C-alpha cells in the first residue's frame, strides 16, 4: 500500500511517515502542492493524505485538479479547519474522508484502511476487524480463524457494520438495505436479526462486539 502524505509541518510529516510505516504502509512525503504534483505525476498511489493550508496554496485546489483528471485515488483531508462549511467544501471538492487535527494515529490508520476497503478502491475484497474477517466476493466469514455460517441477511448486516467499523450504522439504513430480500420485514425484525448475529459472533469467540444505540442504530467496535 503506497500513500502520499502532503503535509508542510515537518515534524508531523515525519511522525506520519513512521506511524503509517509501522501500520504497513509505504509513505512518500510532500511538503507543498508543487512537491505533491511531482509525486502524483510519477507514481501510482493507493491513497492520499492531504493538508489544506499549504505554503504554496490551498490543498483543495490540488484535490479539484486531481478529480478533474478523473483520478479515483481515495483522498483523506487532514486539516486544522474544523468548521462544518470547511468539511462540506472538502467533501464537495472530492475528498473521501475528513479528519481534523489534532487526531489519534490509530484513528487515522483505521480510516485509511476503511478508505482502501471501499468498493472502488484497490482492496475492496476482504473486510477485517479484530479476529473477524469477511470476503465481500465469496461472502465467507472467518471468525477467530474458523468459518462461521450466517444467513444471507445476517451476512448483509455484518458487511454493513464491517464497512464502517467504529461508526454508527443508522437503523433506517439497515432497514432499507434489508428490504431487498424477499421475506417481508417484521416490526422488530432488525432487533431479532442483530440479536442472532451478536449471539453467533459471541459463540464463535469473536472479539469484536455489536453495540446497540437504542433509537439510533448499531455500531461494530473492535476489542480495544
Amino acid at each position: 500500500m503506497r500513500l502520499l502524505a502532503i503535509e508542510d509541518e515537518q515534524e508531523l510529516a515525519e511522525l506520519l511517515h513512521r506511524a503509517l510505516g509501522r501500520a504497513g504502509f509505504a509513505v512518500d512525503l510532500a511538503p507543498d502542492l508543487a512537491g505533491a504534483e511531482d509525486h502524483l505525476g510519477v507514481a501510482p498511489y493507493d491513497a492520499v493524505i492531504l493538508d489544506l493550508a499549504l505554503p504554496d496554496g490551498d490543498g483543495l485546489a490540488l484535490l479539484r485538479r486531481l478529480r478533474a483528471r478523473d483520478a479515483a485515488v481515495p483522498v483523506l483531508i487532514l486539516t486544522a479547519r474544523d468548521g462544518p462549511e470547511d468539511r462540506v467544501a472538502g467533501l464537495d471538492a472530492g475528498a473521501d474522508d475528513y479528519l481534523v487535527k489534532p487526531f489519534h494515529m490509530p484513528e487515522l490508520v483505521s480510516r485509511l484502511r476503511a478508505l482502501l476497503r471501499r468498493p472502488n478502491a484497490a482492496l475492496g475484497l476482504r473486510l477485517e476487524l479484530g479476529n473477524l474477517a469477511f470476503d465481500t466476493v465469496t461472502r465467507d466469514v472467518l471468525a477467530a480463524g474458523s468459518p462461521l455460517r450466517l444467513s444471507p441477511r445476517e451476512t448483509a448486516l455484518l458487511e454493513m457494520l464491517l464497512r464502517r467499523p467504529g461508526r454508527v450504522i443508522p437503523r433506517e439504513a439497515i432497514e432499507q438495505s434489508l428490504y431487498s430480500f424477499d421475506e417481508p420485514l417484521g416490526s422488530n425484525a432488525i432487533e431479532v436479526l442483530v440479536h442472532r448475529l451478536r449471539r453467533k459472533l459471541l459463540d464463535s469467540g469473536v472479539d469484536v462486539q455489536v453495540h446497540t444505540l437504542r433509537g439510533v442504530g448499531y455500531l461494530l467496535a473492535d476489542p480495544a
Partner: protein
Amino acid sequence: MRQPARAGSSLSARLAWRLAAVMVLAVGLAGAAVGWRSIATIHSLDDAALQGLARSVARHLVRAPGGGIKVALPPALAVRFRYSDGAMLYLVLDGANHVLAGSDPAAGTLLAPFLPRPPAAGLFQVPRAGHDAPPMVGYLRRDHGLGIVVAQGREQREALVNSLMSDFMVTGLGLLLPIGAAAVLIGVLTIRAGLRPLRVASAAAARVDPANAGMRLPQAGLPREVLPLVSAVNAALARLERGLTVQRRFAGEAAHALRTPLAVLTARLDDLPEGAEAVALRRDADRMARLVDQMLKMARLEGLPLDTSQPVDLRAVAVEAISDLAPLAIRQGIELSLKDPAAPVPVRGNHAALALAAANLIENALAYAPPGSAVEVEIAPPGTLRVLDRGPGVAEPERARIFERFQHGHRPAGTSGNGAGLGLAIVAEIAAAHRGSVGVAERGGGGAVFTLQIGRPVAGG
C-alpha cells in the same frame, strides 16, 4: 468647557417657536407702521378737507344790499355745521378781523383770541377750554378782502383713525394670522418630512450588531445637512467591519496555529510505548485539544452570523450527536440511546449549531455518568431536546453558574470529567441564538435532566 447638549429639544418645536415669534413681531411692526402711516394720511386728508370746507364757505358768501355779508350754505353743508355740537365752526371776518358772520354765536368768542394777524393765512390750533377734548384745528383763508375761518374738532379724526386701526386689526390680523400659522405648519412639516429618512437611518442603526456588520445606514433621501453625519457613521461601520473581519480571520488562523502543534504532540504521544505515563499524557493532550476546540467553536459562534431560519429536524440532530459520541460512550461503558418513540420534530434553527449543542449536552452527561449507567436523549415537539443521565446531578446553587464560561460542576471521583468548561456555555450561546433556553433540573430517581428549548417552532409543523 463644552456646554452639555440640551437633550430632547426637538428641531421642529424649536423652529415652530421661532417662526411663531417672528410672525408675531412682523404682525406687530406691520400694524404699527400701518397705524402711523394712516394717522399721517388722515391728518393730511383732514387738513385738505378743512381747506375745502373754507373754500365752500367762501363760495357761498353773499353780499347783503346793506353792505353786510350773508352766508348762504347749501342745506347739506348747513346741516353738518348745525348738528356738529360745536365741533365744526366757521367765521367770516372783514379786513380788520371783525366778525361779519358765523355758524354759531359762540364761534366768535371761541376763535377770536387765536386769530392770526392779517395777512397770515393757514392752519392753527384752537384749544378748547373746560374739557379734556383735544384742541380743534382751525384754518384761515383770505378771499376778496374777507377772512374765512373754519375749525373742526379732532373727534372725527380720532374716530377715523380708530376705525382704520380696527379695520387693520380685523382684516390684517385675520389674514396674517392664518398665513403665519400656515408658515409655521409648513416649516414643521418640512422638517418632519426632511428628517424621516433620518428616522429610517436610526432604525437601521439600531439593528447593527456583530452578526450583521456588513450593514450600512440608508442614505437615500437624506437632507444634505445630515448626510455628512450618516456617511461618517457608515465609514465608521466599514472600519469596524474590517476590524471584525480581521478578528474572525484570527479564529481560523488560531485554529491552524494551535492545532498543528497539538497534532504533532498527539502523534508523538501516540508513538510512545504503552504505559501509565503515556495514557496520562495522552489524556492531558486530549484535554488541551478539547479546550482549543471549544474556544474556537465559541469564537466562531460569537463572530459569525448564525442563520437560525433553516428547517431542521431535531430528531436528525439528536441522531447525529448520538452517532458522533457513540464511540466515547462505548469506551466508557455507558449505554447511549434516543428515547422511543422519536418522531421527527421540525423546528427552525441552525442544524450544525444545534448538533453541536446536543453533542455538548451528551458529552457533559457522559463526563458525569457512572460506568454501566445509561444516558438518554429525548426529543419532543415543539422544540425540546433533553439529555437525561444518572450522574450525581447538579446542586441547586450551581444550576445557573454551570452555563457560564470555564465553570465546572463538582466532579465526583470516578467520572472522567474531561470537559474544558466551555461546553455548556456554548450550549447556552446556541440556545440564545435560537431565542431559546437551556436549563438543568433534578431527575427523579437520581441524576440530571438538561433541557434545551428552541424558541420558534415551525408554523403549522
